[in-house]
């Protein structure tokens, strides 16, 4: 059972965006931002409150990659694998970060909940390729060494 504070948080968001079905995406976005994931019980609760079928809410939550049912790490790193970044060798950057953190195609988040590494199709910053973001902060012209150094720096800050 989820702590009552989660439901109070959702109530606040529903009050902010309005008790209507169209509020489902902004409410879920804020929940994702707050908790770094969407607790399943909270999805059910929000859907119910907004008069959205639970199946529809789950459909929305699984359609957009921003939403996750697994808690994401403190640092969410999105490695751009769009065309421009790809031809400028984004794949080795991803591989280096996964290796450094013990992650894989299937495992995106470190057990200490510090890092989540995922790919994104295009960040729209092709001039800075290859690029990645850490919690929406852009890191341009990366290479595997710089990426690993960045992780170590963040880990130092995070502990």
């Amino acid at each position, binding site marked *: 059972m989820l702590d009552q504070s989660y439901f109070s948080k959702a109530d606040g968001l529903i009050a902010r965006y309005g008790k209507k079905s169209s509020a489902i995406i902004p409410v879920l976005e804020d929940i994702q931002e707050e908790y770094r994931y969407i607790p399943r019980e909270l999805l059910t609760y929000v859907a119910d409150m907004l008069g959205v*079928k*639970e*199946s529809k*809410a789950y459909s929305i939550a699984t359609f957009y990659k921003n939403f996750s049912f697994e808690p994401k790490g403190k640092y969410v790193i999105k490695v751009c694998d769009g065309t421009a970044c790809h031809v400028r060798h984004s794949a080795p950057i991803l591989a280096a970060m996964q290796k450094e953190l013990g992650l894989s195609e299937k495992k995106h988040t470190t057990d200490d909940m510090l890092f989540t590494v995922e790919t994104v199709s295009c960040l729209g910053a092709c001039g800075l390729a290859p690029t990645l973001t850490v919690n929406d902060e852009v890191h341009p012209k990366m290479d595997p060494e710089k990426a690993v150094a960045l992780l170590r720096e963040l880990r130092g800050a995070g502990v």
Partner: protein
Amino acid sequence: MSLIHVTIDGIPVEVEKGATILEAAGLAGVNIPTLCHIKSLMPDGSCRICTVEIENRGRTRLDTACSAHCAEGDQIQTRSEAVVSARRGILDMLLSNHPTNCFSCPSNGSCKLQDLCYEYGVKETSCPGEMSQLPVDDSNPFFTYDPNLCILCHRCVNTCHKIVGCGAIDTMERGFDSVISPPFGLPWRESSCESCGNCVAACPTGALTSKRRWNYRPWQVEKKVLTTCPHCAVGCQYYLLVNGEGRIVDTEAYHGPSNRGLLCVKGRSGSFDFVQSPERLKYPLIKNKQTGKFERATWDEALDLVASKFMELKKQYGPDSLAGFACSRSPNEDCYMLQKMVRTCFSTNNTDNCARVCHSASVAGLAMTLGSGAMTNPIADITQRPDVIMLVGSNPEEAHPVVGMQIRQAVQRGCKLIVVDPRDIGLAKQADIHLKLRPGTNVAFANGIMNVILSEGLEDKDFIAQRTEGFEQLRDIVKEYTPERVAEICHIDAEDLRAAALLYARADRAPIIYCLGVTEHSTGTEGVMSMSNMAMLVGKLGREGCGVNPLRGQNNVQGACDMGCMPGDYPGYQKVDKPEVWEKFEKAWGVPLSHKPGLHATDVFPAAIEGKIKGLFIFGEDPVVTDPDTSHVIKALESLDFFVLQELFMTETAQYADVILPGASYAEKEGVFSNTERRQCRVRKAVNSPGEARLDTDIFIDLMNRMGYPQPHLTAAEIYDEIASVTPSFGGMSHARLDAGEYLQWPCPSKDHPGTPILHVGKFSRGLGWFYPAEYVPSAELPDSEYPFILSTGRILYHYNTRAMTGKTQGLMEIEGSSFIEVNEKDAVRLGIANGDKVKVSSRRGSITSVARVGAKVSPGETWMPFHFPDGNPNWITNAALDKYARIPEYKVCAIRLEKA
């Protein structure tokens, strides 16, 4: 409105602005293939197979016919080279993620994808690659979902959300990983899926398939018989699919006026296993007095015994010592012959049907206030046209599921919904206002609504002046029912009551739809009349999208009443004590008839115990299970000198019979059901009866002849003609008209009359509508310190009444197979009862055990039980307190005690 001119394959067509190319092609008689399209919904446009070539002003483009609107001058080609090539490409892409091992697919032979690939010569994909490898969901007892065969056309999702209004499934994930599923990847069986199977019917491939399909191939279906569902009174039209061996193998929905192509789980999946059940009675049985065991008899032995015994009792104790009940699940023809037998041979009006225990209060109440005891408006009218629906004491999502689906559609379209019900029923969640009132307080609620309407001056003064009487007296009564006082009686919020009254009164079109929550009370008839009071006060009667609409219970309970299976009425509600009426029937039937009203079914049992009723003939009822206070019913049956039961199964009641006559099920006979809208729906023979079971009408006719009444053998059509000849409101009806495609609603007095969809237009059947001055009277048995809870009983989605029919479908039993009692969580905590605990439920009449379902569905101090299950049948404890007009028992309120068992 200006029309748009286009050509389809060279055929000129005129269409209205906004018409799609698909619609235009329909007008031109040109077929365009579709996979994802559902006619009544907005185009999905996902499958692209309806691609056509459009040429206009020298430019040519390809577009999807389902979503592209016609423009002036469009020249549309549906089979040009470019179109065929595009469709081939689409099929090629679909096959890139769809296996072609059709041999092992249950949809082989009825797959639209297979048909299209065959038509367009696409044998395999030109882009082989990774294919979906997802697990098959086999959890639902009636159907299977194989995501690997799914082409993601979304027909199932659109059907579930927009037509059924359930929304159990949706498209989950994205791109190649997309899959149709309940939320969180739950198995279908554990989701909110209602197993109605409308999604299965909508699936163009083998992704969603009925498990029935493992037992037959489409080409093995020898005939499809269009008939009427035998469960609730919605009267859904569907086909029974019969194979070469004369067995029903499946069902298929038909676009009937009340169901519009929809079926519920009971209709689709639970409407024929019982017909073919090995438990069917196959031979007449006579009880051996010495051993108490039933022994097989010949029809002659059984019929001779029944006829002679009844005539003996009649001679010895008089005609009124006999009684005969009709079966409201049997067609009109059967009901008519049963009451004719009772009236002509028993020479008594002691005949009734089980409307007595469900909607007799509607029949009596609406006859008193409006003049016709029936639903005033058609289902389509009250679900498609209204601005507001006021739903009182009715849970149509479970009890009348296809009406429930149409109410959910109405809500989706923006219709406001007021739910007045003691429980958090599914529709309460979607309601704008839910008045969760205390059971047994309907009259107070209605008076409160009228109090607000009058104090706000929202009454329809012209309507009241011109079309009603008794207003002043009612006005004086409702003056006392202020929202605050009503809120206290009903345990609701006064502001909610005010809001509901304003919403209802201000709506242009607003029907009242009600059900057993209104009728099954010791003040049931007054509850019903309170419904008509509300509607008359605001002039919402005799108009489209309005009216007072009792959703009748069983498939033909309306018909059983129409056919005169009532102690005070001949067919068509002609009163037995009116000289012109009995003179007419004496002339028509050629024998003297009783001139005094007979006993109501619920009064027959006490009369049997008193020794006044000696012989009873029951046709297809199981009162030991269905009537309140079971011990009392059993005592009554044991008090009888002679008891005959005509049945399909060895029911609980059958154990007490002296003779059991095996009758025919709905699938074995011709006839007509009157659905809840007064609509005449044909029942057609699909299969033969088992063993020596016979047509019920033939049994009655043989008995009548043996009892000395010369009744010629007639077909169902001939009996229906006789009904028409003696029943003015049925005067213009015949099987021939119904077979020609008419779904007539009575009154239909003459051959050229189109039937009457809406009653009381311009004038009430009664003349002036009568405001019945109803005061709130508390239920007969209220909770006290010894029995502190209120118990209400009702129906669930998966079963019908005694379960004699639905219980024969294994899948339904898997979903819901045993008794339960809903208890409020606060009470449960206090009593130390947890969800799933065994509990002992006791009243002054007995006690049963059941399983607690703890939650907030019922209010504190209140409980609810379904009445379907023999393990914990609440009728051992319900109260047989009767309504003064309709003699309906108070199933909805009795006082009980709860303990952990």
